[in-house]
């Protein structure tokens, strides 16, 4: 400000430019605290999100040998696209996503409706449903790894007591659609994660005005018609957002298969997911491992998810606009 005043007195600034400068300075002053707070978040995102993303893209076009990093063109992308497990990993990831949506999306919604309808022990049951979310994922999965053990596991013990044929569960060798191995992974994943989605659905359900249900009951609507004509339309926004989040999360499935199958690939690679394959490129191949191929696959996954998310948001926004 002092400089501005000095310059004005010296006649080096026109009155119009001076007023513009004043306005700019006032604007900066007015927003200084906001920028101060914002810069923290910007720095955090820059260090921990944007820089790694940019670095990943750069790495995907490089190679490092004997400590010397050089440009590799599309070689890393060529390598991953010609890896026989590349398409297997995408097929498995799609299989997990579809199964996780059928089971993991519908089950919490139905549980939320049930909880909402209950008159007694609501708090107790909500706590019970949410309990698995509080368990560390590794512990929950190790628990399921024991349940699935073909020799000593709980599930096969139950089947034996019922004189039913036992299963190899996650160690099943089938690669069909769906495979028993992948179903086993989905069951464990749903059990672990459904508590959070259930509570969100429940909150949405409780915001639906009771009068709507009362009016429907007067019109003679049963439970299914109430769900179809009131519950689903009223929670559409939440359902739509959770669907997007769930698909993005399930496409990045890693820890479930990694722990349940002691490395992630399963028999005949039937539980190998895209993120598992990224992990294998980066860490598990030791001498031949490289961050560059892992980065290339990471970029491909990011592009697929970004395209999907963009298309999904565009489609849902478009529909809202036309209503």
């Amino acid at each position, binding site marked *: 400000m002092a400089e501005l005043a000095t310059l004005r007195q010296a006649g080096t600034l026109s009155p119009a430019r001076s007023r513009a400068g004043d306005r700019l300075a006032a604007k900066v*002053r007015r927003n*200084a*605290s*906001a*920028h*101060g*707070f914002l*810069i*923290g978040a910007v*720095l*955090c995102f820059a*260090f921990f999100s944007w820089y790694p993303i940019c670095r990943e893209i750069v790495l995907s076009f490089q190679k*490092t*040998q*004997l*400590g*010397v990093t050089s440009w590799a063109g599309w070689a890393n992308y060529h*390598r991953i696209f*010609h*890896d*026989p*497990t590349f398409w297997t990993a995408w097929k498995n990831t799609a299989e997990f996503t579809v199964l996780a949506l059928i089971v993991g999306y519908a089950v919490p919604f139905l549980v939320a409706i049930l909880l909402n309808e209950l008159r007694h022990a609501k708090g107790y049951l909500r706590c019970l449903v949410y309990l698995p979310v509080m368990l560390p994922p590794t512990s929950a999965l190790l628990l399921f790894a024991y349940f699935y*053990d*073909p*020799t*000593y596991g709980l599930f096969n013990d139950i089947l034996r007591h019922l004189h039913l044929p036992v299963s*190899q569960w*996650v*160690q*099943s*060798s089938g690669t069909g659609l769906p495979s028993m191995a992948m179903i086993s992974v989905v069951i464990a994943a749903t059990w672990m994660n459904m508590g959070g989605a259930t509570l969100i659905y429940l909150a949405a359900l409780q915001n639906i005005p009771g009068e709507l249900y009362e009016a429907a009951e007067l019109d003679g609507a049963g439970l299914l018609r109430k769900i179809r004509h009131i519950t689903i339309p009223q929670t559409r926004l939440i359902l739509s957002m959770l669907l997007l989040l769930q698909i993005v999360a399930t496409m990045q499935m890693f820890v479930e298969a990694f722990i349940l*199958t*002691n*490395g992630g*690939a*399963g*028999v*005949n*690679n039937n539980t190998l997911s895209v993120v598992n394959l990224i*992990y*294998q490129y*980066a*860490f*598990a*191949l*030791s*001498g*031949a*491992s*490289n*961050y560059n191929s892992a980065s290339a696959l990471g970029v491909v996954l990011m592009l697929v998810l970004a395209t999907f998310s963009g298309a999904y948001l565009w489609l849902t926004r478009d529909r809202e606009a036309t209503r």
Partner: protein
Amino acid sequence: MIRRLHRRHGPSRRQLAGFTVFAVLGLAAAACSSSPAASGGSSGGHVTISVDCAPPASSPVQHKEWLADVAIFEKQNPNITVNSVFENPCEVPASFTAMLRAGSEPNLFYTYFTDRNQVLDAGQAADITSYVNTKTVPTLKDIEPTALAAVTAGKTLYGLPTVNYTQGLVINRALFKQAGLNPDQPPTTWAQVEADAKAITKLGQGIYGYGDYSAGNNGGWHFSSEIDAEGGHMTNAAGSAAAFNSDQGKAILQALHQMRFVDHSMSPTQQLAWGTLQKQMAANKLGMYIAAPDDIYNVIVPQDGGHINDYGMGPIPSTSGTPAGSLSGGNDYMFAKHDTPAQIEAGIKWMNFEYLTPGTGQFNFVRQKADGFPVGFPEPQLFTGATLAKYQKLQDASATVNPDFYSTFANAHELAMGEPADAQAVYKTLDPVMLSVLTNPNANITQLLATATTQVNQILANSG
């Protein structure tokens, strides 16, 4: 107006809070960035070296012995301070790879023999060739040539070995006796292994005759060892193409499939990685599996609670009964690229004291016996010549292990075979083959080996 005047007099509380957040983040970011060299180095003739793979307090006796060794070494070398990095396991592939990428290794860092190429590709190993000679490492000329080769590239030395091994067949003598078998004559052919495994499985109560790995790269590792014993090869001599799709490879997988699905002498629980079979052996639930002797004295007895007299070893099985070779392997310490010359010199002194001198450090057999550790195993096969003789004499003087339990293994004098090119990548690719053979009753062995061959060829072509 009041607000504007107030602002002219100085920043508001909100502004102050905003700037404080900014300043704190800036300081935190600055604090996070440190160079590896800043953690050690020398000043005024004093050198500090960091060394990983120090036994943590969760292994109290090994921890105590390590601290005692550090104290003795620092007393002998008052200008050197050893900063121990306590960890177990000594190497976790994910963090190891990340460490190499960041260049944040300790001055001396533990690696497997198979890690050499990865470390060199990352440019993280210091050339120690000019520092290592018979004055700095008096036992140098007697170190097993294959072990030294594992830390050498061309004519450049990047590390010093600490353990070298070949694999054999670990047997549970207690179960052999219970099943009416002779534990002093472990099986040597696959046919004998199958017969003995069947007999042991008949004991029931969740006991299985034979076990093998099929996860964590360990399945491929064992397959490699088994194919070496058959006289086959994992790759061609140039290391440029897979060679395991052979009669030898098929014979091994067929033997495993037979035990799992025809004899039912292998457990339905598969997808096992290192650490699991040792626990089964310690709990007397497993009759046989392939391993190096250190599994018994490092894991089964001290960690998993097995009884030392319940175990013995024979040579690695083969169709003929005389193994053509046995996969050798081992561990070493490499020196970080950022080490100063003084740190390399100090590090070599430490290696010489702790790992390469019979009578001190890992070869202080008197102390091991006093601490209750079994002494007398035919491992590590680190020395030859006069040093081996000295080592043997010291070990025999404190031996607590009955050598007869290991005589057939020791007398086999297995020919040590090096690991294949890009070993871990090759092993990783063979894991699914082993897993399929051990979990799929209809596994198509020919098809599995053909697919794995394609994948390994691609890995070898890309590894350049």
